[in-house]
């Protein structure tokens, strides 16, 4: 049932990608069965004609062929011969044409399927993306696609099924003109074959399942060798033997179980081949007897050829049909994670009546939150408010829930309890697009795309060169951008585009900040945006920040306590609770507070005698 649902989902997606693909598949089916029918029928006429020529003594003994006879006494037989040749030509032509069309189409569908999943990943509720279960689900879905080529196999098997179905119908029609008994006999042997296959398939499924964890481990250890970041460690800590030992161990385990599996497969296939031989024997025997007039009406030698051909092809077709059927269901199993992912709930694009045009105030009211599937409250009963134009710093230890708070505000998650208000309206009530437009954030793990620099910064916003250049100057990356071969049009990332450039972590952070500023939202959130910047660049950005954010509201998270000094108010989060919310001056009065301790831990080494001022230096 689950499989059936998966199957329909698959059809639905495939149909959405390319309806013409199905037309091509069905045409292909018709074509191949047409070819088979021609190959089975035409020889019958030729053979019958040959027999007629002999029986009616039209061929004289000792006859020597003369070219002129093609058009006289033997015109019939050469006509049939010519028909066969022409049919081959015609089907050859159609077949190649169809192949040309289908190849391209298949490649398209094959590429578009991952595309559909990509679309899904970008559309699902964000919370799935941070849930390890769905991360694993995605990995499994990806594994099915890349390692087991499950989608490609499914598509191909599906095409074959259509083809074989049409062929089988044609062949049954022919065979029924001879006898239903032969058909039944064949079906019985075919049934036997299928039973063996089903038995084996079940065995194989459990075999493969038992291998999944082993394979995952093996894949992990192999990945250690093929991934950049580990290379340094492995050399400096001389860890290659450690990894090699693991790989070797898993190699042996996997191979041992594969050996057993393949021996079984060999036996099974062997038995099936014996049954195949039996089928052939039955076919020849029955049809030979019929040619002799035993077990029914006598048939001609031409019909003998025809029936033998169709019966032999029939069992092949049916077995292939079921093979593909098994493949389809197997692939559907493999694709189970893919299908599960594809049926996830999309982020509700809310077309609300509340359109947000400007943020005047933000208010958290008794907000509590725990991540899905977790009982641990990350945020507990948080209440605070921000006025428009304020600079707020959020301070706390690692894991205190600072970033989570931001995610709630960005509507990436919904609070379990309490409400977040913007302009005194629950943020969940706002039209999604308008809400998104008013908030911009630079996260610690921000990502840039392999687009050109300007495309990265402008995103979906309209391009305004002047504004762009202005922002580049503000965040201090203007000179760098101008030094690149194609300036702002230079793509990021070399692996995508040879013309591309690789920027340093600090430069990327500046770009990410530029991107956030370009968006012109009324709230700017910076979640540790300067950790990869050197102190000068960091100081530059901080100094300019008031300019940078203008009259916008701003929220910062940073481990560098110095960044909170120039904020209007500081929210201290400790263990998910808001413990303080005050100005820097006031907080520094409380010598026992977390804020004071954090600040002093960093400040004490920076003390310089009073009166030292920053010298003007060209840097």
């Amino acid at each position: 049932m689950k499989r059936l649902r998966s199957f329909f989902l698959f059809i639905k997606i495939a149909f959405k990608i390319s309806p013409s693909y199905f037309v091509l598949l069905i045409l292909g089916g018709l074509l191949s069965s047409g070819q088979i029918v021609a190959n089975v029928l035409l020889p019958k006429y030729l053979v019958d004609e040959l027999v007629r020529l002999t029986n009616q003594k039209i061929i004289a003994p000792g006859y020597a062929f003369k070219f002129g006879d093609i058009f006289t006494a033997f015109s019939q037989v050469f006509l049939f011969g010519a028909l066969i040749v022409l049919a081959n030509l015609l089907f050859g032509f159609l077949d190649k044409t169809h192949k040309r069309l289908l190849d391209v189409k298949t490649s398209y569908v094959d590429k578009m399927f991952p595309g559909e999943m990509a679309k899904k990943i970008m559309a699902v509720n964000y919370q799935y993306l941070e849930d390890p279960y769905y991360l694993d689900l995605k990995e499994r879905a990806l594994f099915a696609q890349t390692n087991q080529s499950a989608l490609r196999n499914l598509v191909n098997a599906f095409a074959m099924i259509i083809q074989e179905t049409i062929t089988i119908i044609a062949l049954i029609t022919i065979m029924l003109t001879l006898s239903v008994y032969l058909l039944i006999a064949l079906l019985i042997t075919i049934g036997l074959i299928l039973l063996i296959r089903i038995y084996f398939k079940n065995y194989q499924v459990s075999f493969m399942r038992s291998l999944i964890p082993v394979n995952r481990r093996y894949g992990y250890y192999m990945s250690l060798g093929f991934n950049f970041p580990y290379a340094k460690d492995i050399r400096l800590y001389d860890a290659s033997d450690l990894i090699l030992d693991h790989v070797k161990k898993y190699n042996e385990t996997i191979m041992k179980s594969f050996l057993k599996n393949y021996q079984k497969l060999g036996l099974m296939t062997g038995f099936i081949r014996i049954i195949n031989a039996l089928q052939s024997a039955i076919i020849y025997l029955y049809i030979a007897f019929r040619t002799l007039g035993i077990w029914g009406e006598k048939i001609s030698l031409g019909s003998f050829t025809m029936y033998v051909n169709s019966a032999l092809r029939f069992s092949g077709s049916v077995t292939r049909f079921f093979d593909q059927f098994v493949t389809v269901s197997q692939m559907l199993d493999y694709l189970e994670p893919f299908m599960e992912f594809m049926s996830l709930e999309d982020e509700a694009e809310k077309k609300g009546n509340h359109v947000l045009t400007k943020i005047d105030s933000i208010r958290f009211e008794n907000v509590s939150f725990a991540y899905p599937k977790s009982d641990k409250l990350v945020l507990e009963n948080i209440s605070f408010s921000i006025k428009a134009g304020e600079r707020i710093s959020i301070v706390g230890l690692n894991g205190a829930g600072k970033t989570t708070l931001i995610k709630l505000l960005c509507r990436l998650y919904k609070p379990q309890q309490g409400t977040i208000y913007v302009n005194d309206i629950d943020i969940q009530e706002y039209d999604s697009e308008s809400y998104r437009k008013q908030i911009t954030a630079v996260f610690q793990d921000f990502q840039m795309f392999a687009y050109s620099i300007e495309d990265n910064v402008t995103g979906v916003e309209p391009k305004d060169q002047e504004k762009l250049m202005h922002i580049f100057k503000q965040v201090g990356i203007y000179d760098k951008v101008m030094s690149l071969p194609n300036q702002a049009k230079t793509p990021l990332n070399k692996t995508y585009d040879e013309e591309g450039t690789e920027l340093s972590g600090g430069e990327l952070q500046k770009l990410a900040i530029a991107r956030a500023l370009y968006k012109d939202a009324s709230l700017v959130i910076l979640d540790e945006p300067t950790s990869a910047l050197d102190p000068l660049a960091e100081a530059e950005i901080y100094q300019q920040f008031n300019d940078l954010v203008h009259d916008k509201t701003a929220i910062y998270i940073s481990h560098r306590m110095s960044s909170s000094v120039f904020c209007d108010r500081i929210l201290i989060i400790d263990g998910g609770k808001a413990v303080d919310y005050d100005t820097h001056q006031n907080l520094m009065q409380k010598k026992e507070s977390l804020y004071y301790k954090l600040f002093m831990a960093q400040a004490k080494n920076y003390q310089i005698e009073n009166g030292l001022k920053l010298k003007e230096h060209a840097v």
Partner: protein
Amino acid sequence: MENVKQTVKKPHALVRMLKYLKDNDPAIIWFFVVYTICSSIHPVVGVVFPKYLITLLLGENVVINSVLFVVAIFFLISAVTSFLESYTFYASNTRITYLRIRYLFIQFKLFLTMDYKYVEDPTFGNEYELAFEACSSNNNGIEQIYHSMFEIVAKILSIIMYVVLVSMLTPWAFLAIFLSVIVGYFTSKFVERYRYSKRMELAHANRKTRYYNEVTYDFKFGKDIRLYGLGEKVMDCYRNEIFNYLKVFRRIKNKEYGWALFDLFFVLLSDITVYAFLIIKYLEGMDLASFTMYLGACLALSTALKTIIGDLTVMRNEMRYVKDFFRFIDTPLVTNDGTLPPPEDETLEVEFQNVSFKYPKTEKYIYKNLNLKIAKGEKLAIVGVNGAGKTTLVKLLTRLFDVEEGEILVNGVSIKQYELFGYLSMFSVVFQNINIYAFPVRQNVTMGHDRTDEEVWDCLIKAGLEEKIASLSGGLDHMLLKVIDENGVELSGGENQKLAIARALFKQAKMIILDEPTSALDALAEADIYQRFNELVSDKTTIYVSHRLASTKFCDKIAFFNENGLVEYGTHDELMALEGQYYNMFVTQGKYYQTEENDDETVA
């Protein structure tokens, strides 16, 4: 020795593979023999048998028993041969796969041990692109060649039997069939050549679609895509790249289609020849049974020839991968020319002498004529702006890269003269990004160089991690990360850092290098980690790379780098007195920490 290796001509890749097979799993040869016998007989029986049956059917007095007898013989032969054919085929399959896995292991080992400069060299990947593919799956490269070799002899034998049969009819039929197949071979070769000429374009287009595949599948992009509403745009680009890929693909397919139509003409020619000769021979007195058999033989011959030519083409294509693979494993990628053992001294003296360096295949020098000396037991801080080459210095010292000019001396001896592994054993390096491995805690500390548990615990205690590890149900044997074991534990950032310290402690190196080790930690965790560093460093020579000047001011010496290399060098006080770039950076960084604290100090 390395040079000799290159000058000796290696035998052909196929010969090497066969020898490898013989050395590693000779049993495959027996499977091969049985398979070849059965697989060559079996199809021919299918062609010859109908002749006998039809002869019986055409006969004047039909004896049912002889029909039964012929069919029974047919059944027996085909049952036995096809059973053995299937069994030997599959039973040898895994053995062949294992040969590939063994080769993959060789490749993997090279990856782990080759000089680090190759790891960071993007052109290295391109140069050996085919080689890396050679062991990647069941149906390409090495394994495909083995499978093809396994099957090909049987196919050749069948073909010889068909050729004999068809030639008995008329050599012309054989020639016509052969011609059509040969033409097909050449046209497919043209197509293949065309495809090959387009391979860069195809790979390029493919890489671009793959990029979008990776980006969209990477959950890390999720936040940005949502906040900036980028989904549509990304999808458009993704689709666009797919269409670009298809454009190239379609051109190849058009070529293929054109040649396929050309082929059809020769297929037509051979069909005409075969049928014309068959009919004429029949008219001239050949019986129907032979007619059927010869017809069957002609069809089978043309199919078999096509298959074998297809196989040969596949083999030829895959051989490119295999040859590249052997080129890869034959290339000396591990440089370890030095012979000196590590010095006996407790700790090291390091000297950079006129060192110039730029990364391979780049133009920009990171350093020119760098001179820098670190005395025994000295703590040197390397500070400066981003991109000034702070980490590069570490990479040169640890021989991950070689200097372009000049020399690096350790205890007065050029580092190249030391035996590589002995040399590396002298350094403990802690990087900003700590790699935690899905191994038990123990091996994350020992990195495979297991000694006693006490020693491991001792390091964990000094790193301040013993409480955490003791609280795990498996203790030292508890698995880290969840990749391998669902009960594995994921440590926090600070704990990871401590684990790295334990790892560095365990190594008992002579010199310590800390490369921006705490930039992702909060202030209290950072302060804690610094305490632990003292454990690690004790009185050993230490290089400390950082851009937090507050944490480096206590070092014995500070080297300040900018784009022009080393510009300021001295103690914190000296550099502050200099009021140069270091001073500037320190003041800038400390600016916001000032007033409050000074007030506070006056109070205290």
